[in-house]
């Protein structure tokens, strides 16, 4: 069972929208700064965005999960 609540679900969808907006990072478009002297900032930023996406989706599974899991199969785990 998830902790679904309409308010939390709205917040999650706002965060997903924010991710999509943050994806258009015009602010790092022409920066050639190297993070730790190795990774271009534009790539580092988008790698962080992937991590942030994972976190937002984790929150979504906790607070905005669309189904109560009442239909679990009886036959065990991964096969």
């Amino acid at each position: 069972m998830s902790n679904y609540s309409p308010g939390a679900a709205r917040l999650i969808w706002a965060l997903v929208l924010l991710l999509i907006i943050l994806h258009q990072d015009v602010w790092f478009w022409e920066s050639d700064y190297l993070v730790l002297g190795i990774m271009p900032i534009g790539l580092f930023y988008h790698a962080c965005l992937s991590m942030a996406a994972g976190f937002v989706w984790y929150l979504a599974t906790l607070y905005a999960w669309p189904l109560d899991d009442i239909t679990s199969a009886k036959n065990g785990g991964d096969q």
Partner: protein
Amino acid sequence: MISTVVIACYLTLLLALGLSSNRLFSGSGKDYQLATHSIGPFMLLMSLFGTTMTAFALIGSTGEAWQNGIGVYGKMASSSGIIHSLCFFLLGVRLWRFGKEYGYATQIEFFQDRLASPRIGLLLFPILVSMVIVYILAGVLGAGTVVNVFTSGAFPNLFPGNPASPPSVGAVPTWLGSGIICVVVLLYVFFGGMRGTAWANTFQTLVFMVLGVVTFLVIASNLGDGGIWENMRQASEMVGERWKTRTGTSKTVFLTYMFIPLSVGMFPHLFQHWLTARSAEAFKLPVVAHPIFIMLVWVPCIMLGIWATTEMAHAAVPPLGRLDPEVPDSANKVLPMLVKGLSSPILGGFLAAGVLAAIMSSLDSQFLCLGTMFTNNIVKEYFAQGTMSDKQTVFWTRTFIVLVVLITYLFSLLEPRGVFGLGVWCFSGFSSLFPLVFAALYWPRLTRAGAYASIIAAAGTWLWLFLSAWKTGKPLADYLLEVKVGGTVYDFMPVTLMILVSATVLVVVSLLTKPLPEETVRKFFPKRA
């Protein structure tokens, strides 16, 4: 020769794994096509990730970064991390529930039921099948090329090749490489069905993820004379501004590229994987881990790609310096050259296995999905009066899998290299049907006429834009829409217009036509009807 042995061992191991899954096969059609909804979170994650990642994730991403810089990650990887999970979350979980409740095995069965229209299959079937076949052809041709490149010099007496092109000497020819891969995939899909496919996908996804990281570390440590950290720092400092930034990337193209990953919402092979889930809970891990997995595979490849442009890499691997970005297919040689130049033949063999794993983990699902669609949506629907025994279902699915493999392999012998340019068009076509699946799940007012009109509008817009691209005579993948606003011209991906048209037509025609019967709507929207 060592690389060839490693590849052969990998394929044998994969075959053994896929075939051993047959021991759990219950003999029912549902088990063969959907593994009886028994797949748990970890295998679902691996299956979905392996199916959505192709050879492009390893070789193509490195080549694209070598050619155009880091922009490819934002365009194709981080956008997919957000949008793919969104599709799993919004579409996958609901479709799984309806599939389990009403017994669907294919997308067409869902749409037939949702729209109370058995004939919608006649419209959707050719569109979905033709787009999947293009996707498969690209995989089969790519697999042949990988086997050819990594077996170079292994069989000089058997395959003399063209002495004017030294890499071809002793290499397994592409037609044979494609054939070997087709046979391996065919065998484990044929005997293992969906369970064999899920097992093989899990194994293969682990292989290409681990090997991607290992390859990165080995190459980084051999790129210069210092330690790994120092080598990485030196190489990054030498990378030109063009590759470290996105100065060469259009901001509007970057923005509208985000519509392309919506294609996963309508991939028929992904739909079938969604239905294999043991429970709705099983989706949680894939939804969360998918963006992180994408990052783990893509970031090392992008870094290798931009380092390959530097003098440091050219000194370490001289052939890299002679690669011409203007020559077709050069980009796909960057990663194999780095591996051959900076690692051992054993790692070269393992990397080839990793790339083949990425290709095969998509091919297997596509073969099985087409076999299932032909069986359920054509034979069962039109030649068996809607009923089939388990034995007949398994027989026909296997028969069609063999035919699909055979036909696509024969097509691949014609060397239709143009299919690689069709990749983005194929994905755009699937994306243009996203409004249909979204409305089918979330908009009770969707009507039959609205759905038909949307599909026809999507197909018509796709065809019109494709012909426009064809007429330019330039590479199909480079075609962009241009919109002039206040004297400035903005570029957009063609998929933008396709989605806009199909969504608008869907909404307008649905609102203008008679709603579906209440009992049909209530089946999918019990509280709202």
